[in-house]
């Protein structure tokens, strides 16, 4: 079977599903991961609000989730997925494990970006009487912005890769199509088309992220 209009529509639909999964789970992962990453930095020893016990617990939780391979996590959380979405297949169902896998990853990305902020600048803020909240919102986040944006691009493309993996369990999107047609039915043309599309999408996200970051970076 050659690529025709109906497969074209199928691939376009797959692309939309992939974008839907990627964008929505990345956003949700940031809702959790951004505060979590910041909390990891500020509660650490020598941070602006040191809470060693809390910091230790959060680190363990993040490490545990990070150490489970995505494919296994995907299957392990199926009951949770069913409980939340009522189903275990399709792109909406895939968003649940994606968020669970991505949030701690995002937290680590955010943590490393925020840690890069010069201690001296934070100290200057403190010496002017800024509250910890003001340090976070007026110093840490704005100063780390270029790095946070690069992190955002990395997170998005990683999550896109995860979403394709979810194709194994009927997760929808381009990965699902590649596995069903390319792997089970040996339709290499469809396989190649989806792979090329995935590469293009990753490139686009990466480029946009880098461009915005560069534009935002006033350090040079």
């Amino acid at each position, binding site marked *: 079977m050659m690529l025709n209009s109906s497969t074209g529509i199928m691939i376009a639909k797959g692309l939309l599903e992939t974008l839907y999964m990627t964008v929505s789970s990345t956003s949700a992962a940031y809702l959790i991961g951004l505060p979590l990453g910041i909390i990891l930095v500020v509660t650490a020893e020598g941070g602006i609000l040191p809470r060693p016990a809390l910091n230790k617990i959060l680190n363990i939780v993040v490490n545990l989730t990070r150490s489970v391979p995505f494919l296994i996590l995907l299957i392990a959380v199926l009951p949770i997925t069913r409980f939340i979405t009522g189903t275990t297949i399709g792109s909406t169902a895939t968003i649940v494990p994606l968020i669970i896998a991505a949030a701690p990853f995002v937290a680590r990305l955010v943590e490393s970006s925020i840690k890069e902020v010069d201690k001296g600048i934070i100290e200057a803020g403190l010496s002017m*009487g800024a*509250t910890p909240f003001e340090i976070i919102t007026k110093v840490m986040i704005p*100063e780390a912005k270029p790095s946070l944006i690069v992190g955002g691009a990395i997170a998005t493309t990683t999550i896109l890769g995860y979403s394709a993996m979810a194709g194994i369990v009927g997760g929808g999107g381009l990965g699902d199509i590649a596995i069903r047609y390319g792997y089970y039915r040996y339709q290499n043309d469809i396989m190649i088309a989806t792979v090329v599309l995935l590469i293009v999408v990753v490139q686009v996200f990466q480029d946009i992220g880098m461009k915005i970051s560069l534009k935002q970076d006033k350090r040079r």
Partner: protein
Amino acid sequence: MNAALCGIFLKCQYSGVKNFPPGKTALKQTMNETSPIIKIEHFHKAFSLNGEKITVLDDINLEIEQGDIFGIIGESGAGKSTLVRCMNYLEKPTSGRIIVDGQDLSRLTEGQLREARRGICMIFQQFNLLMQRTAEKNILFPLEIAGVGKQEAKARAKELLELVGLSDKADNYPSQLSGGQKQRVAIARALAVNPKVILCDEATSALDPATTRSILALLKDINRRLGITIVVVTHEMSVIEEICQHVAIIDKSKIVEVGKVQEIFAHPKTAAAQRLVYPDAKMRERFIGKRCCRIVFDGSSSYAPTVASMILECKAPVNIMFADMKDIDGVAFGELVLQLPEDKALASKVVGYFRTHNLFVEEWGDDAE
């Protein structure tokens, strides 16, 4: 340039800058003028490193008067930064009291401490400007924290940029400014909420000599015109000489000498002070075996050709062994080492000449008195 600066200062004062912003951010004004603005009592600071306790500062007692420019000098690792960081409680003392503007910092709640900090600003060696904010927005930062209204804050930032001579750089990011310009922005930022004290931790150590001089001149003017007390931490004696009225010398976790700059410069008592005053220890060794005298120009004599007059009057040929002289506002400052004539009578005549001209003379050599 200086005249222009004066104009701006005057303008700022007349436009009410001095009392800006009122209320919330000002430190308590209850104290009288003569009590010290910073008082440190039995201050002790130790860090624990791998379970081991390292004493960095030990039983420090210090009083800094309102309106003073107070220098703290010591060798690297002496604990200068630690001491100055305790003055706004960025670092907490292990024991002892730090009283700033009548408030014992240890007794303040976190919120009160933050408010107190607005009266004690700090400028740093590495400037520590927000890199993602323009010069103007950097100055707005403390005003945002202090809750000053947008319009008012913008006007204030504009005045301050003028004050530090950077009106045309308002929209430059720190990366687009030179080191000296960055420090000017940092000074403007420190002045934004009208502090009573400015703490400078090696504020000029990253700058070249000419820029250092201009920054020090700016600090001096700020001190003179706005009456802000300035604490200057440095490892360079030249910085102390240039702007400080009083100085404390820290050595081996203690304050070993404290007093007027001229006095310490003229009569350094402790070894640590002598090391700082004669930075080149080898210099002294060169004179061993020769009969020399060291003459200190401590700012009390005018920049008259004293040596030339002495030679004319005493008819004594002398060798200048070492000279480090500065002419600051027409006043001689520095030191001079002369090799004295072999003839003892003539030598004491030379020494006498300088002494009658109110100069401090110290005799060195095998048979020095």
